[in-house]
């Protein structure tokens, strides 16, 4: 009996333990269920997104970059498709060995290797790099057959940029090149990172840079399924994918630039270093924009190889410098028409008022020489511009004073950004006492403005320094009777699909209040320059009436009493030749500024260039047609000027 009770008690005891275990089981299963509920219901969205992220790779479909066309539809920048050989670094264990093996199949020059090496260093973090572009059909065939041997090596069809005209207008169009770290920062700052997935190139200079956003377009996207090792799954997907978003091609740029005129201007400048900017005065549209020497922008697209880079970068001619936009030069005597206008507007001179020019102007103990020994004799305003009399402007500068000069002439845009639609333009220097204080902030001793400095500023020397673009804008504003337009290259931006055009409106910046009578006097004198003055030889026989002004800008200062003799001066220290002009004089269609570096007299080196460009634009005349011999209307057909001692 006792034993039986014991057995029953033991059984009871055991079942209690089983009960405890059963409770434990239930508790554990409840926890598991709770966990599943948490993952599959509460957090389902989160994990579903994760699974989709795992499975779906977004393959960007980069858009076609817009074209750049001149005003007549001539293509300046276009795209063509070609095959490239691309390496995915993360999938290639032995890079050198792979490249060596590939070089047995396709042509891989040491140059390609160097460029690839540079690309690797510059594009840290990018996994996919191009080893060779523009593969031939044979190379594509050979690679396709051997592809299984090279994991991580792909042949891709890509669009390439091409500048079919090469050097022509290279500084205007600019170029695109590989996206580098700085570009990446810029792209991220402008919130464009998504749009540049799949884009390798970006505008680096010129219009390619400043109209990057319009040209680039919108990247399309396609979803693909990838497995855990990152391979794209071919055939049907495990689950449905979102439909493809096609790319939207970039817009075309249609310029105001006339590429034939540009070519005429570049040929007219020849082998000289220099710049030319031609503007349509009524709109501000740039007709020609030359900086010589140029360069072939095609070299930069896939990363310039070091040899070409050294050649361009170390050339003493600095072909990469955009002289028209960033070259700073004293305007020389091309400054005088504005001085004359200032005198008239501020009542410091009447047109008929004359001075006597003995060949020099004495200021204190300093003698400011006129270039013509013995002087021009009695000189009124008309003659002062036609023969480019320095003495007239020495005295005028003294009478006007630096503040008046800076204030009045500054209205024409001297020493200020023009607001042209490319990046990087230089400001230059419109000299004034305020400017000098700012300029010599760290050396107060040099801040003082000397009255003698005013005298040389009066003939466009001294601290004066402006870009050829500013000179062109100023003369265009003068031609346009004081109505100033923002210079621009792009006429309109065109949607390549709809054809819809977005015009860059001619933007009137301001109207300088000028008396018509005074404008007439100055313009008349500038017409005189080309008819019977310093520009007469260059414009002999022209069938249109043009207005101009020569200028010669000194590169090095001469010692007191020293005479400038071209032959005695090293070439790069010789004077720059300048010319500003507009035509036809009564209804200007074109205004331009020409600068020829170290070419000496403006009349001899710059004015003929202007003549050829104006002929071409107004008459469609070939630039190589020799001009008729110059009639001798004025005894000395050359002009020159001189600076302060």
């Amino acid at each position, binding site marked *: 009996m006792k034993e039986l009770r014991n057995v029953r008690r033991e059984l009871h005891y055991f079942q209690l333990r089983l009960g405890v*275990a*059963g409770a434990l089981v239930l508790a554990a299963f409840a926890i598991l269920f709770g966990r*599943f*509920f948490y993952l599959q219901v509460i957090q389902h969205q989160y994990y579903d997104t994760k699974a989709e992220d795992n499975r779906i790779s977004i393959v960007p479909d980069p858009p076609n970059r817009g074209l750049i066309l001149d005003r007549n539809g001539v293509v300046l920048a276009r795209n063509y498709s070609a095959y490239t050989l691309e390496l995915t670094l993360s999938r290639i264990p032995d890079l050198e060995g792979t490249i060596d093996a590939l070089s047995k199949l396709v042509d891989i020059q040491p140059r390609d290797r160097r460029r690839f090496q540079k690309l690797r260093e510059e594009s840290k973090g990018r996994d996919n790099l191009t080893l060779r572009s523009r593969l031939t059909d044979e190379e594509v065939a050979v690679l396709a057959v051997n592809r299984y041997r090279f994991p991580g090596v792909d042949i891709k069809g890509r669009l390439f940029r091409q500048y079919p005209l090469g050097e022509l207008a290279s500084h205007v169009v600019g170029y695109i090149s590989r996206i580098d770290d700085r570009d990446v920062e810029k792209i991220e700052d402008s919130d464009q990172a998504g749009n540049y997935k799949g884009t390798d190139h970006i505008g680096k200079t010129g219009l390619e840079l400043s109209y990057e956003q319009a040209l680039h377009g919108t990247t399309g996207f396609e979803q693909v399924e990838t497995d855990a090792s990152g391979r794209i799954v071919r055939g049907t997907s495990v689950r449905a994918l979102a439909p493809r978003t096609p790319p939207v091609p970039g817009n075309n740029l249609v310029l105001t630039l006339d590429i034939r005129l540009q070519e005429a201007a570049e040929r007219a400048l020849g082998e000289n270093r220099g710049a030319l900017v031609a503007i349509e005065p009524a709109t501000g549209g740039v007709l020609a924009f030359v900086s010589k020497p140029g360069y072939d922008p095609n070299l930069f697209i896939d990363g310039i190889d070091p040899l070409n880079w050294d050649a361009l970068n170390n050339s003493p001619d600095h072909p990469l410098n955009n002289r028209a936009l960033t070259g700073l030069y004293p305007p020389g005597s091309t400054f005088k028409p504005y001085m004359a206008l200032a005198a008239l507007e501020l009542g410091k001179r009447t047109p008929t008022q004359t001075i006597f020019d003995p060949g020099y102007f004495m200021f204190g103990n300093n003698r400011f020489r006129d270039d013509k020994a013995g002087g021009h004799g009695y000189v009124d305003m008309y003659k002062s511009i036609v023969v480019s009399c320095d003495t007239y402007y020495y005295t005028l500068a003294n009478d006007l004073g630096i503040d008046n000069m800076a204030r009045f002439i500054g209205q024409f845009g001297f020493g200020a950004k023009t607001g042209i639609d490319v990046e990087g333009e230089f400001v230059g220097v419109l000299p004034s006492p305020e400017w000098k204080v700012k300029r010599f902030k760290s050396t107060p001793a040099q801040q003082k403005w000397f009255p003698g400095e005013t005298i040389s500023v009066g003939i466009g020397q001294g601290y004066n320094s402006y870009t050829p673009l500013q000179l062109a804008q100023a003369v265009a504003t003068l031609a346009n009777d004081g109505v100033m337009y923002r210079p621009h290259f792009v006429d309109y931006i065109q949607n390549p699909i709809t054809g819809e055009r977005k015009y860059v409106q001619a933007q009137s910046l301001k109207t300088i209040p000028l008396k018509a009578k005074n404008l007439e006097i100055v313009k008349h004198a500038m017409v005189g320059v080309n008819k019977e003055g310093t520009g007469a030889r260059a414009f002999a026989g022209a069938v249109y009436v043009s207005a101009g002004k020569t200028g010669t800008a000194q590169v090095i200062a001469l010692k007191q009493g020293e005479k400038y003799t071209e032959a005695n001066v090293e070439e790069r220290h010789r004077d720059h030749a300048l010319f500003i002009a507009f035509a036809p004089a009564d209804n200007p269609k074109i205004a331009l500024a020409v600068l020829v570096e170290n070419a000496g007299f403006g009349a001899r080196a710059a004015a003929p260039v202007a003549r050829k460009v104006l002929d071409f634009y107004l008459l469609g005349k070939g630039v190589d047609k020799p001009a008729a011999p110059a009639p001798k209307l004025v005894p000395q057909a050359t002009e020159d000027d001189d600076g302060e001692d």
Partner: protein
Amino acid sequence: MTTARIRQLLERFAAKIDGPLIAIVFAISGLGLATLYSAAYQSPGRFAAQVLNMLLAVALMWVAAQVHPQMFMRLAVPVFLAVLLMLVGVALFGDVRNGARRWLPLGFASIQPSELMKLAMPLLLARYFHRHEAALRFREYAVAFAILIVPTAMIARQPDLGTALLVAAAGLYVIFLAGLPWKVIAAGVTAALASLPILWGVLHDYQRRRFLTLLDPTSDPLGAGYHIIQSTIAVGSGGITGKGWLEGTQTHLEFIPERATDFIFAVYSEEFGLIGASLLLVLYLGLIMRGLMIAANAPTFFTRLLAGSITLTFFTYAVVNMGMVSGLLPVVGVPLPFVSYGGTSLITLSLGVGMLMSIQYHRTLVQT
């Protein structure tokens, strides 16, 4: 032969088979095969191999069900000693696979003796307690712990933490059910908690990493955390209804590692969702409850302890595996019972079920 004769033969054939148990095992195995078909889509041979494994397992289950519990008790000591000897053999001559010495080459085949220990351990301990049923004192429990610790330590050293865990659990369940005083349990739990830092020092680097990555899988997303992250994503992305059979993206794009074996539950949950996971929980719960019921009705102390321990071992398998796959427990090599691909554990599990059936069938035939 008449149909009556055939029926009679069939009835005799199935007489010792427990209906609820076999139904549940077949249901789980069916789900398992369907899941394996999806998980092993790249190696269809595995599906066929698993079908053969299951046939063999069912046969062994039937055989075990025919054996009288008395025979189990008689075999307990020799089986235990034989398996222990094999473990020594493994330590001395074992094959190293995947960095662990677990396999004993027998010439014609290799076996994993540690797997057999999952049954040998509860058999021996149940027999030991049965023998000393009348007077269980501290000494008996201490001896039981000593018996438990030797093979567990040997298996853990192979290293095979998952199997060691299951062997230890099987033994501990026997000791617990035999009536280990609550005071001792409380003291043991306290001591275990206190010795955690010491245990930490004994663990292998990879084992430590598994625990650390459980706390923060993202700390090592491509290394040790990868398994947990990807299987958790699979489970979570399955949602309520699942992505559908053969349509799990985590599975079919190879994001789930070990998806046919230890991580097969991730495949199952991804494709069948919370509904499928709940169904499987219910089936396991049914299996365990039926097992506990058999234990509760078992006639002898030996059969009670054996049935209880085997049943709770099933529970351990299921909870550790599902907890691991869903990111609750560290990654330990424990298969999901009747679902994971692999013959060895399937055979042990089926023998266990067969023993439960035998105990159930013979409950009234044995009188103490």
